[in-house]
């Protein structure tokens, strides 16, 4: 049992190395290795649910059996509590489904052995990051993660902009890693240990200026890894140019790793959530992130780039909710992180299916594919309803929790922004649905077929999970989210299990409090009723449609009669599909100054992006020095 975390990490790395040796010639062998490695890791992590999530244990594991001597941590330790396991489950789920999806998806690519090697290393690094209990180990895992992510971004280097995106990701990522390293070593100079539990104990009520400086650097570095807004511009480029299965992994686990690191940093390492100013800082950057992300998404005309900006926007929800440091806020944040992985992974897979079938993701070139790809269209609609927060899908649950948490924390303006962002998300997905699946189909897509079964299976699994987490929120909260929330709030137990019992009380000078997870859900919130209503409406519409109640006249499809032609100002139109760019032209025209400014700000020049990152880090440092006591 105690070996499971390390084995799940090692299996993925071992799979990567084995792929180099045995998989370089044979396609089947490398797929087999990737499948076996990811499923073993999935099973090992899922088997940890019972002891950690339900029974409330924490697994501590000292590599090489170097246990603490005289209350001083000298070895590298793994420590898996419910918070780490929560993100671990998200990661392994993404890894497994992404691997299955990529079997057929990378059919047209050459040298897929490198793809699987990099992908398995990325997965191993993310798992290592969420399971580790050592700050420097965290930095190393972040670096491996960045490397593998950059390599995967450049994997389809024949595509427009893939190399450029990889280069920008590498430069920004390396700035972020430098900040993490500088923060780590500044903490080391203060407390002379790298073990997170011990750092947490020693920094309690002991925030020296150097520790505050380190906190600002670490917060900036981890925010860069989570692609919070001023650090975000590498993300859309990378998500757009990477293969879709990798984009799913990026939004599903790579930026979740950043979110995990932020939660671990502010809640456990520095106890920073006791300060009102840090809460407000997180809420401000979260709100800015969700607003700018969604408005940028409205202006995009590439499916994957649009999804990437939505991904940034949803991370904004998570950060905002985490900033509201009540138990309800943290529950909302973690629930939304889980949901974001599910529906955004689903949508990226849909984008991959569209790309596989048609060879493009440009919204202006697509149209009318629902007839050719009915299952993909249905899956896309589930994903779009989920991300827009329509009941009974999962986005509704977590967004409702976010609204309630921010409102109860007397942050009504934030609630309003969150509602507004949700509406704009829905608007932008109406645009996507209209320009890809509905409307008129361009002539060149006559021969498009539905994607193969091995690509549809992961999509359906994710779609079903979206519905399950939507209609059973009480179960998900009880068995997955609440243990993680109480683990994040109960840092005394985290310290004790790593350093030996009694250590926390000795250093902190006070008994360990058991956090009180107690909140009531406000409003009319009964998912089953919503589901029944949704199903009834669906059945009613179907029945009416089948009975001919809508009075549809079945038009002959191929007619030469000119009276059926689409007619534009005196001339017959060849192609009358409303393009993705044109759907919200009124809104865009009214806000043209804002959209023009945001478009110019995302200039694509790496120096500008680096300037944003460094400038924001400076602001973090100044803010934290001024406002934290």
């Amino acid at each position: 049992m105690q070996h499971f975390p390390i084995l799940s990490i090692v299996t993925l790395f071992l799979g990567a190395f084995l792929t180099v040796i045995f998989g370089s010639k044979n396609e089947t062998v490398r797929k087999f290795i990737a499948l076996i490695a990811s499923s073993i890791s999935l099973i090992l992590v899922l088997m940890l649910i019972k002891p950690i999530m339900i029974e409330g244990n924490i697994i501590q594991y000292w590599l090489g059996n170097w246990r603490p001597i005289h209350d001083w941590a000298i070895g590298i330790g793994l420590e898996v509590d419910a918070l780490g396991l929560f993100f671990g489950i998200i990661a392994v789920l993404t890894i497994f489904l992404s691997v299955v999806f990529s079997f057929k998806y990378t059919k047209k690519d050459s040298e897929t052995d490198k793809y699987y090697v990099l992908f398995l290393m990325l997965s191993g690094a993310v798992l290592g990051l969420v399971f580790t209990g050592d700050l420097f180990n965290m930095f190393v895992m972040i670096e491996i993660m960045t490397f593998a992510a950059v390599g995967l971004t450049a994997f389809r280097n024949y595509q427009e902009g893939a190399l450029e995106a990889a280069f920008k990701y590498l430069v920004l990522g390396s700035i972020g890693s430098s900040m993490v390293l500088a923060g780590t070593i500044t903490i080391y100079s203060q407390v002379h240990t790298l073990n997170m539990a011990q750092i947490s104990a020693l920094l309690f009520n002991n925030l020296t200026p150097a520790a505050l400086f380190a906190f600002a650097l670490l917060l900036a570095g981890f925010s860069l890894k989570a692609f919070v807004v001023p650090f975000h511009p590498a993300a859309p480029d990378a998500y757009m140019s990477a293969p879709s299965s990798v984009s799913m992994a990026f939004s599903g686990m790579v930026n979740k790793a950043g979110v995990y690191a932020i939660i671990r940093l502010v809640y456990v390492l520095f106890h920073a959530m006791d300060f009102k100013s840090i809460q407000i800082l997180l809420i401000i950057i979260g709100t800015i992130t969700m607003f700018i992300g969604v408005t940028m998404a409205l202006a995009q005309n590439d499916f994957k780039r649009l999804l990437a900006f939505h991904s940034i926007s949803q991370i904004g929800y998570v950060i905002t909710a985490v900033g509201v440091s009540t138990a309800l806020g943290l529950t909302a944040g973690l629930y939304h992180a889980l949901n974001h992985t599910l529906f955004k992974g689903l949508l990226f897979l849909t984008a991959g299916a569209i790309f596989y079938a048609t060879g493009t993701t440009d919204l202006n070139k697509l149209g009318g594919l629902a007839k050719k790809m009915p299952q993909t269209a249905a899956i896309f609609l589930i994903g779009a309803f989920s991300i827009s927060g329509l009941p009974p899908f999962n986005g509704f649950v977590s967004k409702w929790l976010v609204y309630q948490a921010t409102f109860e924390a007397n942050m009504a303006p934030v609630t309003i922004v969150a509602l507004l962002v949700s509406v704009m998300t829905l608007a932008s997905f109406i645009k996507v649905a209209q320009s890809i699946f509905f409307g008129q189909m361009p002539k060149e897509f006559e021969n498009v077929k539905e994607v193969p079964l091995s690509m549809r299976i992961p999509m359906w699994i994710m779609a079903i999970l979206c519905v399950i987490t939507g209609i059973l929120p009480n179960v998900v909260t009880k068995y997955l989210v609440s243990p993680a929330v109480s683990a994040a709030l109960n840092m005394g137990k985290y310290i004790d299990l790593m350093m030996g019992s009694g250590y926390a009380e000795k250093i902190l000078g006070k008994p360990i409090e058991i956090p009180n997870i107690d909140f009531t859900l406000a409003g009319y919130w009964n998912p089953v009723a919503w589901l029944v209503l949704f199903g009834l409406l669906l059945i009613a519409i179907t029945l009416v449609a089948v009975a001919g109640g809508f009075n549809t006249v079945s038009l002959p499809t191929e007619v030469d009669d000119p009276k059926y032609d689409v007619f534009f100002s005196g001339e017959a139109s060849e192609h009358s599909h409303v393009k993705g760019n044109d759907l919200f032209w009124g809104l865009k025209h009214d806000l043209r100054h804002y959209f023009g400014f945001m478009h110019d700000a995302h200039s694509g020049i790496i120096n500008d992006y680096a300037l944003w990152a460094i400038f924001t880090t400076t602001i973090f440092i100044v803010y934290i020095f001024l406002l934290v006591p």
Partner: protein
Amino acid sequence: MMKGKNRQVKDVIVKTAADFFTPIALVLGFYIILHGHLSPGGGFQGGVLVASAVVLIYLGYGYNEVSKKFNMEIIKKNEALGAILFTVFGLAGIIYGSVFFTNVFANIGNVGDLISSGTIMFMNNSVGYKVLTGVGFLILLMIGLLAPDNEK
């Protein structure tokens, strides 16, 4: 400086120096890898030293000779082999009944002997193996990119 045909004929001083220094680099590198658990240095440093022999051979004999001598595909596989060996020695701790990376058979030999530190020595050697193949591969890749087209 040297253009056209002259490029094929290397300077005799460079060639002699390469002949002289390559064995030294190899011996010193392997020495540092083997004694990594006893003295400063270790797998990484020794591995880089060994891999630098590739640069010496390139300087002395040019890209053609180097590409004839080394098979990049095999080097790549050997690098992965080094990584796998390292992981397997780490897993030996679990098989032995303890935890990952435990030093198995730590109490054999006298302190300061070559074989005295259990699996630490083998882990160190696998790191050295991985680094010498990995950095060697990197150097081969780079001189392959830098080599002028008429030499390829």
